[in-house]
C-alpha cells in the first residue's frame, strides 16, 4: 500500500562527518592534548548524534503506530473496543515497541453529554464488550472532558480507563497543542495513574478529527476535534531501548523549556570536556537535551595512547570515518526496517478491510492499493501501479477530485482529513460504479502520499432508488385515485396533501389548497362539527376530528363535506396518525369515500323492507279472511244440512207413526236445502277451477237478453218471497261469442247479491246497454245496504265479505263476486262497482262484442286487480234509475224471452 521510505543520509550527519574530518586534520597537526580532547569531543558528538537519531527513530515509530490507529478510526468512526484491540494487536506493541506502556484513545465529551456517554460505554454494543464498571475520574466539574475510553493492553492499565485527561494540566496542555497544530504532541514528564513503581513517563498524543470535516485552520481544527490517540512510554524504558539500539548509555535527558530533568543515569562525567556530548532534539513539540556518557574506553585510550594515535592519526581518521558512516547506516537501516515492518502491518490491516484503499503520489499516480481496491477496480495491485488515477474515475469527476486533492496537498498537514466526495469509479471492464471517496494525505520518508478510501455505494444507491420509486409510485397512486379523497395534514391539522379524488369530491384546486394550507375543518360541515364537539366536550376544531386517532391509530366516521360551491356531500372518513422515527407525530391522513350511493341503497333497502312488511300485513289479513271463510262456509253448510237431516229424521218418524203433517212439505224443504248445499259446493268448485286454471269456456253465440232472463227467473222466487221487485230495462244488443252458462251464472250472482242486500219490499233493476267502444254493458242496481267506500277495492277478492253483510248476518261465502270477476275477465271484459252506502249500488259488467280472448278462464291474480282498474259507472246506474219503470214494455227485440218484470205481489204462497 504505502511506498517504503528510502533511507537517506541526513545533512546533519554529513556535516558532522565533515566536521570530524576537519577536526582530526587540525588535531593531528596541532597539540596532541588538544587533539586528544578533540577526539573525545568528536567521539561524543557522534555518540550524541546517534542517540538523537535513535530517540527520533523511536518517536517516529510511536507516531506512526498512532497514525495507523488514527487512520483506522477515520475509516470506522464507530470503532469499538474489540476492533481497537485487533488493530493494536496488529501493531504488536509487545514485540516491536515493548517500551510503550499503553496505547489508548481519549475522547472529547461535553459535560452535558457525559451521562449518556458514560451509559453508552457501560452498555457498549456486543454484550461482553460493555464496561459496567466504567467510571469517569477524577470529576473536576469542568464543562469539557477528555475521557480515556479504549486502552490496550488493558491488563495493568485499568486505572487509566475512564481518566479525564483534562483533569491534569500537563496532559491537558499537550492535548490542546495536538488539537491546535494537528501534529503529534508530547507531554512533560509525568507519572502515569496506573504506575505502581517510582517511574516517570511521557505521553505522545495524535489528534483525532471528524472524518470529513475541514481542518486547515485553527478554528476548523478546534471544531472538528474529537480526541486523541496516545501512547505512554516510561522514560527509563525509552532510554533503555535507545541505549540498547545504539550501545551508548544516556546520562541525562532534560526538557529544555521547562528545565525538567527527565532522566539522570550513571555517575556524570568528571572530565571537563567540551559539551559535545550534549545534543538537542525536538520531539512532539518539546525541546529535549540529551547528554550521553563519554565512552570510557575511548577516553582512556585517547589519554594513554596519544602518541600512537598521532602516528596512526590519518589511518584512524579513515577508520573512524568509515565507522561513522557504517554506524549511521546501521541506525538508519534499523529504523528503516522497523518502518517497513510497521507499514507491512498497516498494509495487512488495509488488506483485511472490504473498503478499497488506493494510495497516490502527489502527481496522482497510483502507487499501491489493497485487495478491496483490486476487487472494485479489477486488476492486481502491481498491475495498475504507476497508472494515472484518472483511469479509475469517470472523466467528468476527475477535475473535481484533482482540485480537492491539490487543496489537500497545499494544506499540507498529514492530519488534515479530506472531504467525502460522491464520485463515479470506472473498473477495468469499463463499468461505472457509484462510490464515496474519503481522502487523507500523509508523509513518509519517500515523500507525501494521498490515500483514497473508496466505498462502493451501488447497494445504497439501489436502496435509495427503490425508496424514490416507491415514493413516486405512491404519489402516482394518489394522483390516480379520483374517487377516493386523500387528504393529509400536519399535526396541527393544516392540509399538506390533497389528491385528485379530493379535488373532484370537494371542488377545490389541489395546488391552491396545498399552497394555502387551510385547516382541515374547512371542508367539514360546521354544524355537524359543533354537534360532535359538544358530544365530546371539546371546542369545535381539529381536535374533534382527530378524537380517538392517537389511541386507536385509525378511526372511521360519517361526516358531511362542504364543497367549494357550498353543496354538501355525505362521506365516510377513515383517519390515521402518521408517525415518524421514534414515534414522533408527523400528522394525519384522512381517506374519504362518497357514501351518497350507499345511503341511497340503504334507503332502497328500507323501502323494500317496508314493502315486504306491508306484504306480510296483507298476507296476515288474507289469512284472516281465509279463516273467516272457513268459519262462514262451515256455518253455511251446516245450516241447510240441519234442515235436510232434521226433516229426514222427522219424515222417518212420521212414516213410523203413520200420522202427522203432509210429507210433501217436508220433502220440499229437504230438496230446497239440498239445493242450497249444492249451489254452495258448486260455487266453491267453480272458484277453485278458476283459480287452478282448469276452467274452460264453452264458447258459442250468446243472446244477452236470454241470459239475463234466465238469471232473473232463477232469482224471482227469493225476490218475491221478500217483496222485492226486479225491474228489467233491456236495450237490444248484438249476439256475442261467449259461454252462456257462465255468463248467466255471473249475472245471477249479481242479481242474488242485489236481492240479498235489498230491504224487503225494495227494487232491483237490471239493464243491458249497447255501449260505446264495442262494449256490452249489463248493470244490476239495488237500493239496499250498499258497500262502504273503503271496501269497494277488495270487493272482488276471494272470500271477501263486507262488514255490513257480517253485521246483518247476510249469508254468503265471499265467492260470488270473485266468480263474476273470473268469468267476465275470461270474456275479455271487466266488472265494476259504484255504491253510495244506504242509497244505491250499481254493479256493471262490460263485455266486448269481440270477446276474442282465450277460451280459458284464468283468474289467477287478475280478479284482485280488477276493481282498481275499473272506474265506477254512476251514469249508467243513474240512467238505469231514470228509466226504471214497472210498466216498461217487454224487450222488443225478437227472440228476447226474458221476463220483463216480476212483481212483488207474485207469490207461490210460501213465506219465509
Amino acid at each position, binding site marked *: 500500500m504505502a511506498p517504503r521510505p528510502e533511507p537517506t543520509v541526513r545533512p546533519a550527519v554529513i556535516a558532522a562527518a565533515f566536521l570530524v574530518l576537519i577536526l582530526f586534520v587540525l588535531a593531528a597537526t596541532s597539540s596532541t592534548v588538544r587533539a586528544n580532547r578533540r577526539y573525545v569531543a568528536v567521539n561524543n558528538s557522534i555518540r550524541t548524534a546517534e542517540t538523537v537519531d535513535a530517540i527520533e527513530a523511536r518517536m517516529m515509530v510511536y507516531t506512526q503506530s498512532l497514525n495507523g490507529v488514527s487512520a483506522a478510526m477515520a475509516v470506522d468512526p464507530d470503532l469499538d473496543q474489540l476492533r481497537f484491540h485487533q488493530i493494536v494487536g496488529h501493531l504488536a506493541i509487545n514485540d516491536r515497541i515493548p517500551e510503550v506502556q499503553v496505547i489508548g484513545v481519549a475522547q472529547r465529551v461535553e459535560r452535558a453529554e457525559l451521562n449518556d456517554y458514560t451509559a453508552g460505554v457501560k452498555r457498549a454494543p456486543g454484550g461482553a464488550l460493555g464496561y459496567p464498571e466504567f467510571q469517569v475520574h477524577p470529576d473536576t466539574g469542568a464543562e469539557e472532558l477528555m475521557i480515556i475510553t479504549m486502552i490496550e493492553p488493558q491488563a495493568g492499565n485499568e486505572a487509566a480507563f475512564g481518566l479525564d485527561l483534562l483533569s491534569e494540566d500537563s496532559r491537558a496542555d499537550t492535548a490542546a497543542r495536538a488539537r491546535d497544530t494537528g501534529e503529534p504532541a508530547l507531554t512533560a514528564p509525568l507519572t502515569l495513574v496506573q504506575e505502581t513503581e517510582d517511574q516517570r513517563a511521557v505521553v505522545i498524543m495524535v489528534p483525532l478529527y471528524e472524518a470529513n470535516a475541514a481542518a486547515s485552520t485553527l478554528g476548523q481544527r478546534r471544531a472538528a476535534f474529537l480526541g486523541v490517540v496516545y501512547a505512554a512510554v516510561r522514560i527509563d524504558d525509552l532510554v533503555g531501548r535507545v541505549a540498547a539500539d545504539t550501545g551508548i548509555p544516556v546520562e541525562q535527558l532534560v526538557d529544555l523549556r521547562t528545565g525538567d530533568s527527565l532522566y539522570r543515569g550513571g555517575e556524570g562525567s568528571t572530565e571537563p570536556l567540551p559539551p559535545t556530548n550534549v545534543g538537542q532534539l525536538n520531539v512532539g513539540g518539546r525541546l529535549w537535551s540529551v547528554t550521553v556518557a563519554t565512552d570510557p574506553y575511548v577516553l582512556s585510550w585517547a589519554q594513554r595512547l596519544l602518541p600512537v594515535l598521532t602516528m596512526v592519526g590519518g589511518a584512524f581518521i579513515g577508520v573512524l570515518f568509515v565507522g561513522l558512516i557504517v554506524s549511521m547506516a546501521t541506525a538508519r537501516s534499523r529504523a528503516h526496517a522497523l518502518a517497513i515492518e510497521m507499514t507491512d502491518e498497516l498494509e495487512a490491516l488495509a488488506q483485511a478491510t472490504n473498503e478499497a484503499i488506493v494510495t497516490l503520489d502527489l502527481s496522482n499516480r497510483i502507487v499501491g492499493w489493497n485487495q478491496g481496491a483490486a476487487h472494485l477496480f479489477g486488476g492486481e495491485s502491481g498491475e495498475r501501479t504507476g497508472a494515472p488515477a484518472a483511469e479509475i474515475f469517470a472523466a467528468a469527476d476527475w477535475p473535481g477530485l484533482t482540485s480537492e486533492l491539490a487543496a489537500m496537498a497545499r494544506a499540507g498537514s498529514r492530519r488534515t482529513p479530506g472531504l467525502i466526495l460522491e464520485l463515479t469509479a470506472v473498473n477495468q471492464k469499463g463499468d461505472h460504479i457509484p462510490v464515496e471517496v474519503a481522502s487523507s494525505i500523509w508523509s513518509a520518508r519517500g515523500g507525501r502520499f494521498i490515500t483514497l478510501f473508496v466505498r462502493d455505494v451501488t447497494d445504497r444507491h439501489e436502496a435509495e432508488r427503490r425508496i424514490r420509486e416507491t415514493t413516486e409510485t405512491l404519489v402516482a397512486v394518489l394522483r390516480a385515485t379520483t374517487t377516493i379523497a386523500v387528504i393529509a395534514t400536519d399535526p396541527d391539522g393544516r392540509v399538506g396533501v390533497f389528491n385528485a379524488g379530493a379535488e373532484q369530491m370537494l371542488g377545490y384546486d389541489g395546488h391552491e389548497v396545498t399552497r394555502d394550507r387551510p385547516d382541515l375543518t374547512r371542508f367539514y360541515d360546521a354544524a355537524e362539527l359543533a354537534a360532535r364537539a359538544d358530544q365530546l366536550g371539546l371546542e369545535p376544531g381539529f381536535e374533534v376530528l382527530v378524537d380517538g386517532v392517537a389511541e386507536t391509530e385509525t378511526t372511521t366516521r360519517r361526516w358531511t363535506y362542504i364543497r367549494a360551491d357550498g353543496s354538501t356531500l355525505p362521506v365516510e372518513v377513515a383517519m390515521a396518525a402518521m408517525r415518524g422515527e421514534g414515534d414522533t407525530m408527523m400528522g394525519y391522513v384522512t381517506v374519504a369515500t362518497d357514501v351518497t350511493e350507499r345511503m341511497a341503497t340503504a334507503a332502497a333497502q328500507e323501502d323494500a323492507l317496508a314493502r315486504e312488511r306491508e306484504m306480510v300485513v296483507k298476507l296476515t289479513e288474507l289469512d284472516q279472511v281465509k279463516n273467516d271463510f272457513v*268459519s262462514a262456509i262451515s*256455518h253455511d253448510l251446516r245450516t*241447510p244440512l*240441519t234442515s235436510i237431516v232434521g*226433516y229426514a229424521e222427522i219424515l222417518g218418524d212420521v212414516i213410523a207413526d203413520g200420522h202427522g203433517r203432509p210429507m210433501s212439505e217436508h220433502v220440499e224443504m229437504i230438496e230446497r236445502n239440498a239445493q242450497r248445499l249444492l249451489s254452495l259446493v258448486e260455487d266453491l268448485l267453480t272458484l277453485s277451477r278458476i283459480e287452478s286454471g282448469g276452467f274452460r269456456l264453452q264458447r258459442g253465440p250468446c243472446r244477452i237478453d236470454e241470459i239475463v232472463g234466465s238469471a232473473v227467473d232463477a232469482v224471482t222466487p227469493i225476490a218475491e218471497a221478500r217483496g222485492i221487485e226486479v225491474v228489467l230495462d233491456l236495450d237490444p244488443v248484438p249476439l256475442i261469442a261467449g259461454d252462456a252458462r257462465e255468463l248467466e251464472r255471473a249475472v245471477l250472482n249479481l242479481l242474488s247479491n242485489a236481492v240479498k242486500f235489498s230491504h224487503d219490499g225494495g227494487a232491483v233493476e237490471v239493464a243491458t246497454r249497447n255501449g260505446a267502444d264495442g262494449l256490452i254493458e249489463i248493470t244490476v242496481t239495488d237500493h239496499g245496504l250498499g258497500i262502504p267506500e273503503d271496501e269497494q277495492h277488495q270487493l272482488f277478492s276471494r272470500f271477501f265479505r263486507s262488514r255490513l253483510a257480517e253485521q246483518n*248476518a247476510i249469508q254468503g261465502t265471499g265467492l260470488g263476486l270473485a266468480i263474476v270477476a273470473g268469468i267476465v275477465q275470461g270474456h275479455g271484459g271487466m266488472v265494476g262497482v259504484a255504491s253510495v252506502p244506504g242509497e244505491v249500488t250499481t254493479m256493471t259488467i262490460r263485455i266486448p262484442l269481440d270477446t276474442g280472448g282465450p277460451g280459458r278462464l284464468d283468474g289467477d291474480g287478475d280478479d284482485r286487480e280488477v276493481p282498481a282498474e275499473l272506474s265506477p259507472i254512476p251514469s249508467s246506474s243513474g240512467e238505469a234509475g231514470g228509466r226504471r219503470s214497472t210498466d216498461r214494455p217487454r224487450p222488443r227485440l225478437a227472440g228476447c224471452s226474458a221476463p220483463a218484470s216480476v212483481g212483488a205481489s207474485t207469490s207461490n204462497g210460501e213465506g219465509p
Partner: protein
Amino acid sequence: MSKILVVDDDPDICELVSFKLTALGHDVVVEHDGDGGLAAAKADPPDLVLLDWMMPRLTGLEVCVALRDDDSLARVPIVLLTAKAQEADVQRGFAAGADDYIVKPFSPRELATRIEAMLDRARR
C-alpha cells in the same frame, strides 16, 4: 205443556224445530231475528228459549246476555242452537249465560230430549 220461544233467521230450521216441539205438545213461538226474539221474550216470558247465534240485528249471544240481565227472565233456560262448532265458541256461548249448546246439524229427536230434560229440571 211449556211455552218455547224459537229464534232463528233460517225459516226452514224454525219450521223444523217448531214442527218437532209442537208435535210433543209444546206451545212454540217463532222469531226470525234477535230484536224480535228479545221483544217477544219480554212481552210474554217463555219457559225456555232456543237461540240461533248468527242472526241479523242482535246476535244470539247478545240476546242471551240481555235475557240474563232482565230480572224476570234471568232464570229462563236458554239453549244455543248454532252452526258455530268450535270449542272457543261453545265456551263463549256458556259464558254469555246459555244453559245448553247444540251444534248444527242436530237430530230433532236429541234436541227434543234435551229440551224435555231441561224443562223437567226447571219445573222442579
